């Protein structure tokens, strides 16, 4: 498919907000050696996931098609790309910025992540304490294991408010 580099595709606003979010890393310095993809955990199991391509699309301003695909959520945040990038571009930082941008522009992150975020807002943790099964199918809980009960975080009410503001209308 031919991609036309029209003004609406090269969306400077997107690019500028990514640049702002990833400072002091500079995605424009990328020279496509793809060392990031050679290192990438996700690339080894998801062939279409390529950090160097994400950086290339980002610096071209072709961010919309990237966000539409949802591929950015496959990143395991293992930070290998950031560690080895010869130009200090740190693709992982670019990808985190893109995720933020996606959410801010109305894209929906994976449902499990939304659930975690809601729990953090409401309970202060990504999940309530759950009951677990041992190998012998015995059920254990914090109580039965004699672990102290969990309490809400300090100043939970105000934290809840701040977090809701930051995380938007999830």
């Amino acid at each position, binding site marked *: 498919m031919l991609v036309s580099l029209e003004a609406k595709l090269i969306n400077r606003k997107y690019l500028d907000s990514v640049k702002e979010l990833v400072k002091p890393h500079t995605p424009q310095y990328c020279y496509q050696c793809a060392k990031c993809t050679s290192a990438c955990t996700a690339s080894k199991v998801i062939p279409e996931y390529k950090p160097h391509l994400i950086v290339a699309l980002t610096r071209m301003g072709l961010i919309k098609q990237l966000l539409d695909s949802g591929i950015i959520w496959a990143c395991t945040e293992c930070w290998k790309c950031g560690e080895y990038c010869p130009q200090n571009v740190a693709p992982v930082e670019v990808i985190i910025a893109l995720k*933020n941008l996606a959410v801010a522009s109305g894209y929906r992150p994976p449902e499990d992540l939304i659930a975690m975020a809601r729990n953090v807002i409401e309970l202060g943790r990504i999940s309530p304490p*759950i009951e677990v099964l041992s190998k012998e199918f015995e059920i254990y809980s914090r109580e039965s294991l004699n672990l102290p009960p969990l309490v809400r975080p300090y100043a939970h009410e105000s934290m809840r408010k701040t977090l809701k503001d*930051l995380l938007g209308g999830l």
Partner: protein
Amino acid sequence: MVKVLLYLGCTIPTKQYAYEISARNVLPRLGVELVEFPEAGCCGFPLKGINKNAWIYMSARILSLASMRNLPILALCNGCDTSLRKIKTLLNEDESLRKYMAKLLANEGIELHTDVEVYHVVDLLHDVVGVNKIKELVKKPLTGIKIASYPGCHLLRPSDIPRPEDSVDPRKFDNLLSALGASVGYYPDKGGCCGATMLPYSAKYALRVVAGKIKNIKEFNFDAVSTSCPYCMEMLDAKQDAARSEVGDESISIPVFYLTQLIGLAIGLSPKELGLSLNLSPVEGVLEKLGVSLSG
């Protein structure tokens, strides 16, 4: 004796109980006094994809709460450790970010402070408690068991902030295992990733990551794996069966222990004191070699 705030994070106190149990029973015996830190919630690590500032805010909160207690933080989870150290660095380097966070926290009566020491179990035991001290306490050495240390990504990277382990050549974890009498060794990609963060995107692919890891370790003839991260444990241990079926390879089977569990076994604690019945991987063989049984 070193006194620290026991910072549990999210996964450990809601799901990975074995880590909490073993840490609570083992660490005091090594001279680490654990002080409860119940008012600390999530470090924000899972939120950074949605909003980076939410992540920074949550960690800034923990750092500030800890500095009110005037004690160092002990993070059990790799994710928490990375968050706290990374955000500490960010806030110390970026004046405007610091001002912004200070304002958010001031709304809820918290004064922003970042001058607090952060430890993870691995560097606390290796650098503060010391390998020799641990060696002295060993009653049942893990002789003859070859254990693969699995430090996990966020013990090592990003290396531009202070990390518990060396990013390319992690040694501390192995030094601790050696102190227990176990044999250790090289295997490719020791600093590799368990794939846990990929779970919300795709469980299928995340399971393939962990299957690959276990295959790798088995090729180098290890008897067991040890980790110090609840996410890695969740992937390597709890999801081991699922990973095996996902790739259809029966050889994917290996016992997985928390570092704290292995230390506990070596200093003579019972499986119950270490929550060992909660490990879902086949740990029985190793326990048998050590002459302990799950029920005992």
